């Protein structure tokens, strides 16, 4: 494990030094706005007019900036600099085969020529922001398998979860009857919270069969959410705010519920216990049930995606408020800065709570869906229970 950590530190330091090769400054426009505002109260009107002009430009920049931070990219941002990025490999399958190159070759609108093919990041049109191949002046989208920021963040979250949980498993193998302490103990407490609190009460006998998937989903989502809140390199990627990622997680739950569903479950969907006119000439109940199979993962997707993206977007907008008000006078700007920073910190703290709650709700709902799909033949059992309960009640009341 120490070797893994060492390699990770080496890679990080290499990446940061590679990103420091180029220098670029972009704060010129904001700096000039601040200059204009600090001239004096007499010139406030002039400053406001100038700021209004620049806020018009900034209005477009604001949408761009927000979506740039919330979305995916081909390099990883370095803090305190808008233009340097840690380059990540771009892996595309163009018309003539596989091309692998560093994303630093296509930053800032450069074109990269590799053999016969030319690649660049499209700046407008359908493929805006993505790598396109230029053949005869037209843009084609190749098969894109690049390690983008979100993919790299998924790898990092996987490594973190594996490190923590494999350590826990190894402790229990080495010290069979002792309780772990410190970090391992904390991870065990969380595992116990989910297993004894959510999985065992709902699934009862079948907990051991589904617990690996459910606990993996919980820890994966929890750590991806938390890493998205850290601002610097290993974190800062809004992974769960990407609907593709949450959709795949929901598809995993969909697969787990339906592939392992019992015969009783499928019978309840395709021939439920309802009056015949709801089933036979027009399959109304069947349609509703099949629709229900698909809406549950869809709800899981959108809930996790919207919560995480919403949290990040609010923090981003609060921070960008400072730049919007930057040209409107020193007092307003500093007041806005103070309030905005305080509110951003508050929202980030709430986001930590929301990360845990959303991971917990995802796991809990997956557990409930799986338990519903594991329904056994209960009719006679239920009647039997009711009869025996009534018999008991009448006996005890005598």
């Amino acid at each position, binding site marked *: 494990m120490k070797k893994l950590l060492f390699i990770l530190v080496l890679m990080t330091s290499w990446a940061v030094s590679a990103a420091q090769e180029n220098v670029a400054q972009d704060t010129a426009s904001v700096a000039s706005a601040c200059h204009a505002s600090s001239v004096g109260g007499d010139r406030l009107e002039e400053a406001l007019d100038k700021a209004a002009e620049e806020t018009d430009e900034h209005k477009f920049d604001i949408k761009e900036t927000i979506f740039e931070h919330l979305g995916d990219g081909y390099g990883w941002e370095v803090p305190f600099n808008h233009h340097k990025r840690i380059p990540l490999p771009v892996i595309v399958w163009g018309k003539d085969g596989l091309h692998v190159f560093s994303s630093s070759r296509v930053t800032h609108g450069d074109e990269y020529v590799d053999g016969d093919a030319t690649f660049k990041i499209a700046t407008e049109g359908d493929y805006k922001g993505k790598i396109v191949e230029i053949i005869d002046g037209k843009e084609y989208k190749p098969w894109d398998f690049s390690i983008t920021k979100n993919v790299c963040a998924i790898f990092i979250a996987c490594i973190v979860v594996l490190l923590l949980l494999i350590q826990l498993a190894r402790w229990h193998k080495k010290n069979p009857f002792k309780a772990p302490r410190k970090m391992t103990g904390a991870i065990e407490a969380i595992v116990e919270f989910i297993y004894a609190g959510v999985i065992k009460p709902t699934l009862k006998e079948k907990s051991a069969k589904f617990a690996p998937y459910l606990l993996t989903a919980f820890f994966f989502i929890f750590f991806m959410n938390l890493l998205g809140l850290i601002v610097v390199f290993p974190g800062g990627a809004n992974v769960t705010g990407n609907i593709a990622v949450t959709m795949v997680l929901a598809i995993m739950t969909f697969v787990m519920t339906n592939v392992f569903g019992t015969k009783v479950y499928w019978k309840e969907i395709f021939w439920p216990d309802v009056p015949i006119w709801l089933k036979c000439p027009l399959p109304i109940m069947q349609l509703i049930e099949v629709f229900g199979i698909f809406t549950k993962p869809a*709800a899981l997707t*959108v*809930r996790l995606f*919207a*919560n995480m993206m*919403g949290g990040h977007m609010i923090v981003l907008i609060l921070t960008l408020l400072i730049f919007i008000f930057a040209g409107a006078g020193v007092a307003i700007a500093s007041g806005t800065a103070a309030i905005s920073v305080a509110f951003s910190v508050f929202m980030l703290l709430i986001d930590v709570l929301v990360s845990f*709650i959303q991971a*917990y*709700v995802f796991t*809990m709902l997956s557990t409930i869906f799986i338990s519903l799909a594991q329904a056994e033949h209960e009719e006679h059992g239920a009647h039997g229970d009711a009869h025996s309960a009534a018999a008991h009640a009448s006996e005890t009341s005598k």
Partner: protein
Amino acid sequence: MLAMILAAVEALLGLGASVAAGIAAIAAGIGIGKIGASAMEAIARQPEAAGDIRSNMIVIAALIEGVALFAVIVCILALFV
């Protein structure tokens, strides 16, 4: 005049999205407020069960918030897509 208003599509999109997001916020507020109220009453009646009640309250609040965020996603789609 109606034609003039209907021609300002972008402004209408913005207006519709903002009003809808506001309604979603009101609805989420009412729902979670009711959950909070009944949770408070339940804790007052039986203080030993406070831990259980609190966990269930947080889970149900997350579910209600999910529904409100579906509406917010639709608003964002209307504004930007």
